[in-house]
């Protein structure tokens, strides 16, 4: 038997840690259906009723409704823009042999060394200078830039595997460069596109500090990650409402994760390997 006695400690430790991960989430989930008194009195018991009162409160007191819409808008548009920029760029780099292509690829991959965090204030200045300060528009334009290095590098890897003969055949039929991109390269590197969509979906949806500083507190513009922490102070910390709000922001990510678990883990490994 492969997992004999000596593995007992490993089993126990691994599951203990898993419990440590799940316990706060369980607490989060059940607290979302409780009042403060119930949360403190019996933190781990199942809720007595599954009323959606806390969710409603969270929605109205932190304006979570518009915030979710804003998050969806920012995430979807930024993802579209990322693809619009990265696919042609990767296509160009993958087809250009010699120094130039390699140089451009190098420029992009050096982006991994740019610590976006220290650049928060200059980015803020840039937002102010372009007149897009306190708008989600700026985030839609900005987020794809942060995603460029990873997205381009991953897509180039995929596109390099496409045989040149495919393109030559299409060329003989008179296909333009754009048609080659559209009808050959894009369909053939769908797995790569899926990978960068998933990776960037996680980053964009969860982005916090830049959104906080640049979009600011306006409920019509702010994203859900910025709206959520306001529940802490606004409600004199009603933990039921706070946890209900947190659960709401987790739902989209959780759904995507559960459906695409395998692919998503593979995507993250790809992302790390290509660094």
């Amino acid at each position, binding site marked *: 038997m492969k997992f004999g006695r000596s593995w007992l400690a490993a089993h126990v430790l691994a599951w203990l840690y898993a419990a440590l991960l799940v316990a706060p989430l369980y607490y989060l989930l059940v607290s979302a259906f409780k009042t403060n008194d119930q949360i403190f009195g019996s933190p781990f018991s199942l809720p007595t009723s599954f009323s959606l009162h806390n969710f409603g409160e969270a929605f109205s007191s932190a304006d979570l409704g518009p915030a979710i819409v804003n998050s969806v808008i920012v995430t979807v548009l930024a993802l579209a823009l990322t693809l619009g920029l990265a696919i042609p760029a990767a296509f160009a780099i993958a087809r*250009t042999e010699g120094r130039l292509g390699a140089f451009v690829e190098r420029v992009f991959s050096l982006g991994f060394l740019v610590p976006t965090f220290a650049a928060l204030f200059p980015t803020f200045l840039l937002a102010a200078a372009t007149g897009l300060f306190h708008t989600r528009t700026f985030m839609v334009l900005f987020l794809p830039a942060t995603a460029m290095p990873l997205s381009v590098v991953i897509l180039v890897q995929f596109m390099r595997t496409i045989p040149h003969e495919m393109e030559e055949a*299409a060329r003989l039929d008179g296909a333009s460069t754009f048609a080659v991109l559209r009808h050959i390269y894009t369909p053939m590197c769908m797995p790569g596109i899926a990978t960068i969509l998933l990776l960037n979906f996680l980053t964009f949806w969860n982005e916090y500090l830049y959104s906080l500083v640049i979009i600011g507190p306006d409920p019509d513009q702010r994203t859900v990650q910025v709206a959520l922490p306001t529940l802490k102070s606004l409600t004199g910390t009603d933990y039921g409402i706070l946890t209900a709000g947190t659960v709401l922001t987790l739902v989209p990510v959780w759904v995507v994760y559960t459906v695409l678990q395998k692919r998503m883990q593979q995507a993250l490994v790809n992302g790390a*390997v290509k660094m």
Partner: protein
Amino acid sequence: MTLLSSAPGGASVRRPAPPSPPPAPPRRKQGGVILAVPALVWYLVFMVGPLVAIFVIAVLHWPGMLQPVSFAGLGNVRTVFDDPVFWDSVGNTATQLVIALPVMIVCAYMLGYYVAQKPPGHRVLRYLLFIPGLISTPAKAMVFYAVLSPDGLLNGGLDKVGLGSLTDAWLASPSTALYCLIALDVWGGIGFTAVLFAARLDSVPDEISEAAQLDGAGHWRAMWRIHFPVIRDFVGVVTMLQFLWTLFGSAQNVLLLTQGGPGSSSTTLSFLVYQKAFIAADLGYSQTVGVVLFLVGLAGLLTIRRVFRQNY
């Protein structure tokens, strides 16, 4: 999975073939580079531009957004290096990295190895371990806030089991605030990193572990002496990532949970950049710390790369 079947047909039959000589050398190697220009411009404007600006602002005396700006040269460097708060935050960041990084990487590697051996229930375990990777920083911070606040889960639990004397205002006490932040990093970091390691270990050829078993190597030996060297460079890359996330990302947790306090007991370097820019409005100071942060990040990356360089 690929939409390969739909690819070749689509581009055909656009117009009749031009009457040019048939074996015309394809011009596909040229003309395409221009397609990289939009992405490049985007990247230069939003990523490289701000990075360069950090270095420019660092030599300016700029006491607030609407105040007059003057050239300060190395004056900011002197101010920063004379400031005890800066040295506090250097110490805090060092503590954070020295504790969090080794604990995270070592535990995650062992856990990842365990999962990759496919013990009973490994699928469930994999699913659970990845959860912290999905949760946004504010949501994680809110969970920890609920657990660690004076009337939160941890104190309640301690009271229940009769250890009421150990209860503390965890996030508001100078001796524990920083360690709470480190615990938050480690808590989520181990699981997420373990999944990465497990996925990478999955692709290590089976022959390697079979050979190890034939040699009578115990699991401890197989884990560190046989598998570790194989994925050494991957461990290096993941360590780099975690190093950067911890170094730069700590600002968010600090902001959400302790605001750097009490005093400066939980102020990290990256939070200092934020605080000086957006709360204290001392922009030259802030960006000087930003330069320090950038250099620390660069030096750390190069060091980690050297340590984990493949050496067989």
